[in-house]
């Protein structure tokens, strides 16, 4: 009898008796003999709790990356995670609960989602937000589909300065439908070419999708993009970095119609890529075209305030083949981490985190440019992430820096052999930044 199964032989015999069968095998009559597993599954023998702890500590020890001082972003960021977050997340009431279909016994989850929707709406400058998506990249793909439904047009423009992984996901989601995707190039300044976008938009498009700040950290002119695409009767979809929104103007205020992004920087561990959480906000005109769960405030029979899942007719369990998306399970617990993070940091703390990312990444940028042969790849202003050109191979540099205890920036081979994209979060101290610059300097000198 395993530690997770309380009914032993005595209970099972009594139950089989009540069912009216003699032995367990009698319950298997609907399963044809021909397909029943003969013998046992070939699995390792059971491990004790202690053995598993040891095994996992061994796995962790082979993850040397966890000990590196991180200057890499590109979609996942090494921010400080306040201790109180996990304390709440590991409360049974939150982490073992199911989707809040029975609202009367799920008010905790529902109200926290309502608060999440409020924070995302305020952060993005949009009127409404949903309860979350799988991750930032799939949220962008779903936002593109939302725009297609809202405009009834089948073509979208995507910025060439989107995270290439996001571009891949957009293709995976859209290529199987009857849709066309055109990529708008970016210029030497690192920003998308709005003139090219204007030409491509002729004939009508569902949306222009851009990233803010873009993949390379450059700050796109959201307002100009919004005016442009609205002239063509399309929507502006913005994939935004939530931490950058602590200092940058909210895309919704600049004319964006749908704003999505990756919530990992807001209190979620990097955990080798997941579980993360995508956020999605929009002007209320597009609410009914949105995917995912949405929570609304209402009243109970006594007139008390309460919360329920609402606008459910958009969803797969009701509209089936005509649903706005197939999403069912989402990343609710990570969205809860986002709410707690934004609560603990709050207005001043969150803005401070964003400012520190701005100042520290600019400090690193300046220090790197002091090294002979290091240049900026783009000249547009950046926020928290930037690309420099090293006089040596970026790939080789990464390996060398790893030996010195640093996770260097990500090589961007498309921008040159020496191109490296770096980020600095509030977690990095001046000492760490200086140490990194010094080590990089040594490496470059050694390579010459």
């Amino acid at each position, binding site marked *: 009898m395993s530690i997770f199964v309380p009914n032993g032989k005595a209970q099972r015999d009594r139950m089989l008796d009540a069912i009216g069968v003699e032995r367990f095998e009698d319950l298997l009559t*609907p399963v044809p003999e021909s397909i029943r597993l003969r013998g046992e599954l070939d699995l390792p023998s059971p491990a004790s709790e202690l053995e598993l702890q040891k095994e996992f500590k061994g796995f962790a020890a082979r993850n040397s990356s966890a000990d590196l001082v991180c200057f890499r972003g590109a979609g996942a960021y090494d921010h400080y995670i306040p201790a109180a977050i996990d304390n709440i997340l590991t409360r049974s009431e939150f982490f073992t609960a199911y989707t*809040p279909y029975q609202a009367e016994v799920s008010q905790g989850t529902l109200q926290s989602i309502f608060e999440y929707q409020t924070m995302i709406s305020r952060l993005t400058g949009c009127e409404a937000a949903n309860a979350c998506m799988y991750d930032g990249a799939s949220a962008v793909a779903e936002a593109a589909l939302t725009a297609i439904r809202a405009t009834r047009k089948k073509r979208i423009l995507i910025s060439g300065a989107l995270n290439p992984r996001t571009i891949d996901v957009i293709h995976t989601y859209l290529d199987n439908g009857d849709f066309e995707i055109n990529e708008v190039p970016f210029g030497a300044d690192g920003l998308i070419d709005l003139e090219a976008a204007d030409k491509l938009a002729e004939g009508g498009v569902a949306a222009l999708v851009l990233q803010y700040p873009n993949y390379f950290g450059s700050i796109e002119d959201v307002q100009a993009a919004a005016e442009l695409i609205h002239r063509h009767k399309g929507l502006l979809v913005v994939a935004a970095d939530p931490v950058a929104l602590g200092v940058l*103007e909210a895309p919704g205020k600049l004319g964006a119609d749908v704003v999505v992004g990756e919530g990992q920087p807001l209190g979620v561990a990097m955990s080798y890529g997941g579980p993360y959480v995508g956020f999605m906000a929009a002007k209320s005109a597009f609410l009914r075209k949105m995917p995912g769960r949405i929570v609304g405030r209402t009243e109970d029979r006594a007139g008390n305030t309460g919360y329920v899942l609402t606008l459910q007719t958009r969803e797969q369990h009701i509209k089936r083949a005509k649903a706005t998306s197939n999403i069912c399970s989402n990343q609710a617990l990570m969205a809860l981490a986002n709410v707690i993070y934004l609560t603990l940091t709050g207005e001043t703390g969150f803005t401070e985190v964003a400012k520190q990312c701005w100042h520290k990444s600019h400090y690193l940028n300046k220090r790197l440019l002091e090294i002979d042969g290091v240049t900026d790849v783009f000249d547009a202003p950046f926020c928290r992430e930037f690309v420099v050109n090293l006089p040596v191979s970026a790939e080789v540099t990464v390996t060398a820096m790893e030996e010195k205890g640093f996770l260097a920036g990500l090589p961007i081979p498309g921008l040159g052999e020496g191109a490296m994209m770096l980020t600095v979060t509030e977690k990095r101290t001046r000492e760490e930044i200086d140490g990194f610059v010094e080590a990089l300097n040594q490496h470059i000198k050694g390579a010459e």
Partner: protein
Amino acid sequence: MEKTIFQYSSPGRIGVALPVLDVPETAIPGQFKRKEPIGLPEVTEGQAMRHFVRLSTMNFNIEKGLYPLGSCTMKYNPRLHEFLARIEGLAAVHPLSSDSSVQGTLEIMHKLGELLCEITGFEAVTLQPAAGAQGEFAGLLLIKKWQEERGEEHRNEVLMPDSAHGTNPATSTLAGLKVVSVKSDEHGRVDVEDLRSKAGENTCAFMLTNPNTLGIFESSIEEITKIIHDVGGLNYMDGANMNAMLGIARPGDMGFDVCHLNLHKTFSSPHGGGGPGSGTVCCREILRSFLPASTVEKTEDGYILRDRVGKSIGRLLAFHGNVGVLYRAYAYIRTLGSKGLREVSEVALINANYMKARLKPYYNVPNDDGPCMHEFVASGADAAEKGVKTLDIAKRLLDYGFHAPTIYFPQIVKEALMIEPTETESLESIDAFIDAMISIAEEIEEKPHLVTDAPVNTPVLRLDEVKAVKDLCLVEPVEYEQ
């Protein structure tokens, strides 16, 4: 009732001590700057904790009581897993780390993939899908790509029974395929003749949950999968109900070509109030070259993370899947081993059949045709003459301290109550649930208002869903504060 976090806010409060900026400042150009405050709450850590703990007390959860949501497999979530997934060396790893610096994680992913293939009887696996629905999407794309590669791109139909989960048709649409609904027979199984008449040269795939959404095993499964293979289609198994079959029967041995597993159902990772899950997809060798990004390979030099290989269907998420969920599933399988997993399913079946046997005198169980698997579907339709609906029965159960079963699904059963006790419930808790159901059956006869007025012992009374849609309020209005 708990105030919203915004109502606790007062300027200047903060809930975490941040480091002081130790580098020179660089001015943020005015044209980019946010013009107004964001509107985030300002509270201390203590205030935040009190708020979220108060909210939590309004939630039902597995530690509070039996959670018989059919098709959702609400089983106990071992606490060891939470400890393991949070070990610094596993949690603090950047997804774009070099392979050599994440050998531990890659090893877990590789081993988990092998274990899941053994459990399902398949050869290849992707751990990338974030949830069951995304697993379905990946699975259908694999099949579609396979059809295209052999010159059969005209095949645009996905057949599925009328009892299918809503995600199945929604996923088909997303994959650019057309849904063809197949009838269920009088016992709730696939109507084989109807399937035969609808399968043909346009059949791309057949999607089936087995055991099906009524908790019944599709006994003709070999004939069904052969019909599809004979017309040139492939068979997809929605693995939502895999908890019934661990060590008993494998999808790969039933003629399925691909299936997804909900690691958050069968393999005990917590549901988290709606997610994260993981929709791992296992498939036959013929589909391997189409797998999405982030497969793990074992080589002489260690483990390697492969990006899109061969004729990959692409990328489902930015990174490699809900890795934290994978750690938990791996630990679960390692704890139980083959005998332990088989025991999970055996006891899940015994518990469900026991519940069905004891509730049958009180509730109609349509489609009852011998033993059920890990769940069964009762109907609350008989209560209509007393003015009671299934929704009322569900709400009354909340008063008795239980969660409600899945209701109004599958849609082919009127006023459906889909009940899945899972193996982690004791006979005592199962009996207590049965007693509550019997007691409600008596109330329906004698005092139906107790049922229609329910719930009364919950943090709020029955909520007005019509008002929620009509007077949409999805975010806290700013003026609502203070």
